[in-house]
């Protein structure tokens, strides 16, 4: 599974970091940073949570 982040949609809420801190971080302006494009299986639930909770619908998890 691969994580896609549309950073220009990001509203800097930081919800993704709360959901999956091993996969996402924020820069100084709060914009989300993708730390791991292909996270290990144990992080996928957190990523799915981030996809669902992101208030900008800026994250997708896609099969590759």
């Amino acid at each position: 599974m691969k994580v896609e982040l549309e950073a220009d949609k990001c509203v800097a809420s930081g919800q993704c970091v709360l959901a999956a801190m091993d996969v996402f971080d924020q820069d100084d302006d709060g914009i989300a940073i993708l730390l791991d494009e292909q996270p290990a299986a144990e992080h996928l639930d957190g990523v799915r949570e981030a996809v669902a909770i992101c208030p900008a619908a800026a994250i997708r998890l896609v099969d590759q």
Partner: protein
Amino acid sequence: MRRIVVVGASAAGLAAAETLRREGYDGSLTLVGDEPLAPYDRPPLSKQLLAGEWEPERLALRAHDDVAGLDLDLRLGVAASGLQLADRTVELADGSTVPYDGLILATGVRPRRLPGAGGHVLRTLDDAVRLRDRLTPGKRLVVVGAGFLGAEAAAVAWRLGCEVTLLEPAPVPLAHAVGTEVGEVLTRAHLDRGVDLRCGATVTEVTGDGVRLADGELVDADEVLIAIGSVPNTDWLAGSGLAVGDGVVCDEYCEAARNVYAAGDVAGWYNPLFGLPMRVEHRTHAAEQGMAAARNLLHPDARKPFAPVPYFWSDQYDMKIQAYGYLRGHDEVAVVEGELAEGRFLAVYRRGEKVTGALTVGMPPKAIRRWRQAIATGADWEAAVPSRSRVEAAPGGATA
């Protein structure tokens, strides 16, 4: 449970539907939405869409394939018109009836309006496109209500070159929500740019060429935007037997009646983290509550109280305002980082003995994350907030 109906196809309803599938529910799943559009995002309506930076397609909450993958019985462009609890059926405006074993209500809110003809509101994509097309340079826009929505729209219109008048009945905009001192910082942002913000101005009527104030004065405008809050969409539930007050009345699990849950703007529920009944109209909250309601419906033996730390943000001019927690009805505000006067600060809020809110403008995200944690754990105010930071702001005072 083989038949679940979700009424409302915006953030909360979509999150509920996605969560049901993600948690393994494979029965029939009907998603009803009164707008004829696939689920779209509302916060950009008063921001990027109104500013003409984004086109409507950009607001889609999910890619077409992702929605298709949910295997929904999708009923768009048709409102729900009635609920029969005893029969477990939802009636739709097209005359059809949909039976359910489980039901999630996520019908949101609609804008409050004023007497008189005309005037824009800003809730749907249609509303936003209509207003956007009128906001050309030099146009005189009157915005009624300087809450978050009105302030955002005023900021966009100012940037587009409109002549903006912002009318607010309270002495300080948003003071009831964020405190007087923080409200004054937000006020200054309008005044610094030449937006004609008039506080203590109550609008009684929209006229053909502007608005009328309570003292009889007429304020001329080419366009009027009414941004005076919202009303939960519960009319269709009249006579259903569900308790309706400020929204659909739910318990701490977001349940309104057996196997009937509510989520998003329309849902009033008891938040055990704050020990208060709440109804929250924030984007992030809608998704969180949709997810929580779906899980509790699907797993009746493992239900969890819904005890979130609400979050919202607002973009106004060059300011990004972010807040966690429950700020309304606070007893005290303290500025713990930055300076109000510089428009760059982090303020925290006390209710009773606990830290219950945090609001920041222009501070790095890590600064506020710590305070979110303090709110989530119900941190004691005395221990968490340095006493020297408390002199700046007293409740309702204007000492800063």
